[in-house]
């Protein structure tokens, strides 16, 4: 499998730590991150949010988890239950804030990126066609598990 095998370790570590920092700056809950894994050819999503990234890092950031996990995070962040009619909008905004934080973090390392408006995915969605992909398993204390995915099409310094 050619996926991610030749991605520079340092670049991978930078992206993982920047993603983790971005999440911690946004979500005020204890976060446990498992070792990142290389993802196969495609990704199946039941519920989640996708944000496109352009510039020195081209690809997508995807947050995937049970919709209740997104709701739990919203409740902690805003001190109120997120109603069904606002859950999709909140999930998109959570993705926007994390991707914006990631983009700001890696800017400090000389990587200039922009992000797209979020797309909320609900129902069965299969994502494929990316060059390399990292899966960062995350668990939020009291809120539940979320899969964080970095689907990379191109990355400055990627061979």
């Amino acid at each position, binding site marked *: 499998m050619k996926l991610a095998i030749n991605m520079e370790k340092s670049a991978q570590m930078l992206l993982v730590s920047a993603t983790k920092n971005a999440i911690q*700056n*946004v979500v005020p809950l204890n976060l446990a991150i498992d070792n990142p894994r290389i993802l196969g050819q495609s990704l199946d999503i039941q519920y989640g949010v996708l944000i496109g990234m352009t510039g020195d890092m081209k690809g997508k950031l995807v947050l995937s988890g049970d919709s209740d996990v997104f709701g739990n995070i919203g409740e902690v*962040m*805003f001190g109120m239950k*997120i109603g069904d009619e*606002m859950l999709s*909008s*909140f999930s*998109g*905004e959570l993705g*926007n*804030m994390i*991707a*914006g*934080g990631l*983009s*700001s973090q890696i*800017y400090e390392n000389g990587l*200039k990126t*922009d*992000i*797209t*408006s*979020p797309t909320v995915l609900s129902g069965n969605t299969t994502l494929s066609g990316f060059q390399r992909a990292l899966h960062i398993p995350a668990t939020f204390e009291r809120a539940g598990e979320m899969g964080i995915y970095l689907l990379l099409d191109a990355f400055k310094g990627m061979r």
Partner: protein
Amino acid sequence: MARILITDDAAFMRMQLKDILTKLGHEVVGEAENGHVSVSKYQELRPDLVTMDITMPEMNGIEALKEIKKINSSAKVIMCSAMGQQALVLEAIKEGAKDFVVKPFSPERIQESIEKVL
């Protein structure tokens, strides 16, 4: 009390901002879901202050800021974005934004920004 136009593509964020601003005693006179709508509502409503998200479909917040400044060069616009890169902050300030609030924000941060700008 100020008349404020809120601009953000996320309905959830517009609701949050409206709640914070209303509790601070301001009047939210309009809401816009992209830069395009914000510019036309600015033209129509002439608010005292505009909150402006940056990442939005149709027209982004930097473009909308420039268009609003063409309508009224002394328009008061506060950027309110998840993107906090120094280059972007400097660009917004250069284009005439009065302040730049990075998401996520607290009600206190919004209050501080409005008091500074008004």
